[in-house]
């Protein structure tokens, strides 16, 4: 939704004009490399460098961190990030690589870190010079985050950290990690604490990053192993034993339900980008034969594609409606559905595409005859990452049932 119908402040009006002009003059040209589908799939240094350059230029121009205080490297503006976001998306800029830093680490650091830590970390986070990753999940703590076992033991002003994190996207590029761990084994929730810890500079000195291979065969996720990593107490966020509360700040912003608007840009495509959406699915159906006719002419295929079109549009219109308060029943009801819907629509779109492709649906990336270069079966398999990670679909339904509908807690 580029243009907004709500009343804008004078600051917003002026800032919008500024952003639009700056983007007109400074939007980067076509990328020299194939862009991945999302920041979490960045595979090569070349991709990273291109995207980091874009983020830095946008930050230098004041389009990132607009609403953060100037003292920590922000723009000191009032509700202007959404304006910058709208203009960047309107201009179809590349996306920003430091997605975990901007969306999850920055608001958490702002709310819970000591002043000098904020001043140290946030400017390089906004500029994208420091990539961030997130250390929440563990082999024994998936959806049940509060079961984390990674442990920090006090040693004077330092903490000695040991443990094993998994599913850490971007860890292979990251300078810093937001880290949920345990400082007390006798209390489940109150025994948790929250740190920011160095990764890249500690590699081989207490930190090991190992790629995990996905069912698609791709890398992208990592395991991060801590063996006696020493961290200064200053990098602990908020009080000892308050890690769970700090993590809630992170998760709230991850779900887009935090008070700080996350910087977002995007829309630029490179040639081989292949989105999991119904536009591409219809294209596939047009080019695939079924019973001697195009699959796009088969009434059953048409019906099932239209089911997905309706759901996809429903999700888009939910997002639009979530900003029209007269049409809302409960403040978080729509927001908390986003992740569930987006992941399940992607999964069902992928599944249907593979079925539409029929016999060819089994052909993979290495096959010259594969429809869409084999990206459909890959997208379908990757969709399980979406329905599993960051709270499985089952956990999302618990949250919606309990927080929105007010049903009794299942756990």
């Amino acid at each position, binding site marked *: *939704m580029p*243009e*907004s*119908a*709500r009343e804008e402040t004078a600051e917003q009006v002026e800032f919008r004009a500024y952003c639009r002009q700056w983007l007109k003059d400074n939007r980067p040209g076509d990328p020299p490399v194939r862009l991945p589908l999302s920041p979490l799939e960045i595979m090569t240094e070349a991709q990273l460098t291109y995207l980091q350059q874009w983020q830095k230029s946008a930050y230098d121009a004041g389009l990132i961190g607009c609403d953060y205080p100037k003292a920590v490297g922000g723009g000191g503006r009032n509700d202007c990030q959404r304006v910058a976001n709208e203009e960047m998306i309107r201009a179809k800029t590349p996306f920003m690589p430091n997605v975990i830093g901007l969306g999850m680490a920055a608001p958490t650091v702002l709310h819970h870190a000591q002043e000098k830590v904020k001043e140290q970390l946030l400017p390089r986070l906004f500029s994208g010079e420091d990539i961030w990753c997130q250390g929440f999940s563990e082999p024994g703590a998936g959806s049940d985050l509060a079961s984390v076992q990674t442990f920090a033991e006090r040693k004077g002003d330092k903490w000695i950290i040991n443990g094993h994190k998994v599913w850490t996207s971007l860890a292979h590029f990251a300078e810093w990690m937001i880290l949920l761990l345990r400082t007390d084994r006798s209390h489940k929730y109150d025994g948790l604490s929250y740190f920011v810890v160095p990764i890249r500079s500690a590699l081989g000195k207490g930190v090991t990053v190992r790629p995990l291979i996905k069912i698609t065969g791709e890398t992208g996720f990592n395991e991060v192993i801590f063996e006696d990593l020493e961290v200064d107490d200053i990098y602990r966020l908020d009080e000892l034993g308050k890690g769970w509360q700090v993590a809630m700040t992170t998760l709230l912003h991850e779900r887009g339900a935090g008070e700080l608007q996350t910087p977002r840009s995007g829309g630029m495509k490179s040639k081989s980008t292949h989105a999991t959406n119904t536009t591409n699915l*219809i294209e596939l*159906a*047009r080019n695939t034969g079924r019973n001697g006719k195009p699959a*796009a*002419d088969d*009434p059953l295929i*048409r*019906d099932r*594609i*239209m*089911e997905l*079109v*309706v*759901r996809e*549009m*429903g*999700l888009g*219109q*939910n997002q*639009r*409606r979530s*900003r*029209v308060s*007269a*049409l809302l*029943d409960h403040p978080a*009801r*729509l927001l908390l*559905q986003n992740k*569930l*819907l987006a992941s399940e629509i992607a999964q069902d779109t992928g599944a249907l595409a593979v079925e539409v492709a029929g016999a060819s649906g089994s052909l993979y990336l290495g096959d010259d005859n594969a429809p869409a270069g084999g990206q459909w079966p890959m997208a379908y398999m990757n969709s399980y990452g979406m329905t599993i990670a960051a709270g499985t679909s*089952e956990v999302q*339904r*618990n949250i*919606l*049932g*309990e927080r*929105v*509908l*007010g*049903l*009794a*807690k*299942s756990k």
Partner: protein
Amino acid sequence: MAQPDNFGFGEEATLLKESARKFFADNFATDKLHGMVASDPNPERMSECAWDRDLWQQMVDLGWTALAVPEVADGLGMPVAAVAGLVEELGRAAFPCPLLSTLNATYVLAACGSAGETALGEITQGRTASLAITNKQGSWEAADTDVTCEQGKLNGSACFVQEARKVDRLLVSARNAAGLSLYWVATDAPGLTIHPDAIVDLTRDQAHIQFDSVEALEVSTEGVAALEQAMPAIWTILAADIVGAAEWQLQTTVEYANTRQQFEHPLGFFQAVKHPLVDVMVLIDQCKSLVYNAACAIDTEPERAAEYAHMAKASASETAAFASGRSVQYHGGIGFTWECFVHLYFKRQKHSQMLWGDAVWHRARLADILMGAVA
């Protein structure tokens, strides 16, 4: 997108929706509905057409029947988005009345241009109306009718006419020598017979109408075009009704699931109940968002109105079916009894699910728009 961000759902619409919600909450609790329409459980009963004319008159006096009438015909000319908001509340109350049928007629008349203004003026005056445009086969195609017109006289029959015994006027589609025209006729006109249908839904009145040389006023000779222009609004407001009724089903079932104890827990503790109720909510929200998107398109982006309205009604039909099934199932034994109110909404929703086309029908037409028709 040429549409405004807020669906054009402005302050006036907000006030209308809120006042409608309050009106039904104050005047028409569900036990009143049950007492009115469910007094005779006999499954072989005829349809009774019980409704509250006094409350209805209040609604007319509030101007609700003239909301959609264009200003040229002295109506309020409110956007479809605002009308949808009102209808959502009507659906939540499952209020038996000819508001939807009158709105339907209004949208068709408004699509007739100046030729429709006389009839619209009657609606502004408080007359109610319904469409008589469906043939015996129940085809939802605008061009299908079993009524003919020769020398100004209607003959034949129209079926699945909604609220027939509650309305003053019918807008009839009939074939004549030149093609298909629309006619405006009083329900008490000589030669016109209303045969009530015995339908499952207790909150609605439906009939088939016999025309024997009924004199009628020709409103428009471009009948198919007018009907096709109006259908998106008709589908959209019915979808809004479904959203409101489904939200009643959801909240009522959630309340029961929080009260009823089984196996030492309230029902809603169990994921086998909790998760499907979340799925009901998800369907309702999808549908609601699609309803206001379609309404806004009718108001501001008419070239996409049909596309978006098909989405809204396809989604609404699925929502009606799923919400209804879960509401009875999770009320358990009590939900299977006549005395429990859930059956009223269950039956209304099954009716709405099929009325003006089910999900499969709407998706097939949506596919024709988005993927091209199949030769």
